[in-house]
């Protein structure tokens, strides 16, 4: 199989998923609504005082983004495995990792990217200063992309499992903890007026590591799930 064919196949997968999502856009909107609802819980649970909320705002935005993208990941591969599309991909002779990566990329465009765009709005509502917007957006861009791949591994492993969504969170959340640490720390440093470059670079390093090894793990997991 030539490289051009692989790229074409990956692009087709990417476009197909975007089209499918466009036709059922209300499902795409659900994680975003969930995101806003979760962040509303924190002021209600603690205090309406913005100066106090500001201290935790970066962390709250990050935790809510983690939970919202995990919620959306559960169904990532399910329909394709159930209707046999995934078996065709496995048999197609194209590198499965690329196809899955294309699928994860389209998933990220549909769920990760809206979260990133929404984050400054939500953050401002929690008292996040304008100075920290850049760090928030940059850290969430890297973080949600990494999380999509990590979650893709988890979704591929749990695709044939009953009550997979709780299990998926149980598997992926511990692995996502470094992202949370660096991400919310970058926001915190920007709020304190420090340069957030250090944690952002670490986030980028984790992203590239996950990007290079993640597709291998994903395709291994999908093969296991599809074989029987």
């Amino acid at each position: 199989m030539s490289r051009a064919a692989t790229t074409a196949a990956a692009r087709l997968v990417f476009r197909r998923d975007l089209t499918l999502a466009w036709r059922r856009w209300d499902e795409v909107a659900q994680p975003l609504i969930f995101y806003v609802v979760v962040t509303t819980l924190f002021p209600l649970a603690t205090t309406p005082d913005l100066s106090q909320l500001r201290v935790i705002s970066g962390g709250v935005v990050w935790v809510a983004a983690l939970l919202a993208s995990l919620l959306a990941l559960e169904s990532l591969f399910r329909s394709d495995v159930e209707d046999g599309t995934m078996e065709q991909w496995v048999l197609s002779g194209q590198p499965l990792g690329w196809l899955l990566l294309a699928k994860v990329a389209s998933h990220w465009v549909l769920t990760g990217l809206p979260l990133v765009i929404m984050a400054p709005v939500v953050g401002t509502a929690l008292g996040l200063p304008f100075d920290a917007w850049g760090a928030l957006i940059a850290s969430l861009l890297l973080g949600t992309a990494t999380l999509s791949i990590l979650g893709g591994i988890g979704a591929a492993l749990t695709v044939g499992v009953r009550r997979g969504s709780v299990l998926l969170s149980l598997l992926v959340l511990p692995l996502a903890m470094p992202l949370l640490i660096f991400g919310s720390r970058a926001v915190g440093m920007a709020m304190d007026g420090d340069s957030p470059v250090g944690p952002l670079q670490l986030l980028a390093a984790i992203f590239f590591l996950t990007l290079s090894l993640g597709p291998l793990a994903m395709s291994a997991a999908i093969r296991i799930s599809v074989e029987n």
Partner: protein
Amino acid sequence: MWLWFHKLASPPHAYRLLGKMAPWFGWPALAMMLLATWWGLVKAPADYQQGDAFRILYVHAPSAWMSMFIYVVMAVAAAVGLIWRIKLAHAAAAAAAPIGASFTFLALATGSIWGKPMWGTWWVWDARLTSELILLFLYLGYMALRSSFDDPQRADRASAVLAIVGVINVPIIHYSVEWWTTLHQPASVTKLDKPSIAMEMLYPLFIMIVGFQLYFGWAISRRLRGEILRRERNASWLKEGG
């Protein structure tokens, strides 16, 4: 050499061999753990800062060490099982996970008990305790994934992928947590960070670590035998009374 290796991977042979090996691990483990306990609790001098409270170190540090060691053992066994398709290696990974989780829990519990006299609270978000806690989550996730499949072969292979992903992530988690705590709290709680520990305090620690390792050998031999029995319950060699 290869014949020996292949024989090792055959369930009846492994079952018999493990049965023979278990007491060779078990009795030395018991002896060394008793010796280290006596040495650590009675003979070793009290710490000049912490008094007798530091003696929980003799359980805490070896369990923390074992919790990470067993995770690596588990991931290596899982990788061997996945690459060479050796079912016995998968069985070994399955047998190791609960032991590792128990050691992790023991490390957390003893760390928390130690924290009470030292820090004045049961729990401090200290780098080590936090990464132990995340390690416990990793073990629990592994066992949850394994138990959620009906087909044992699929459970083996899926959880093997998870164990390998996990073992790559363990150092990242460890260093990120360390970075996180050093940013938040300057090194004031690192009183327990030892290095300058007296030699006579160290000997019982080494003995205890070796004892714990031997205990792990004993426990995994027993558990692996059980795992083999469960997986091979319909095999003919069992009916022959092998």
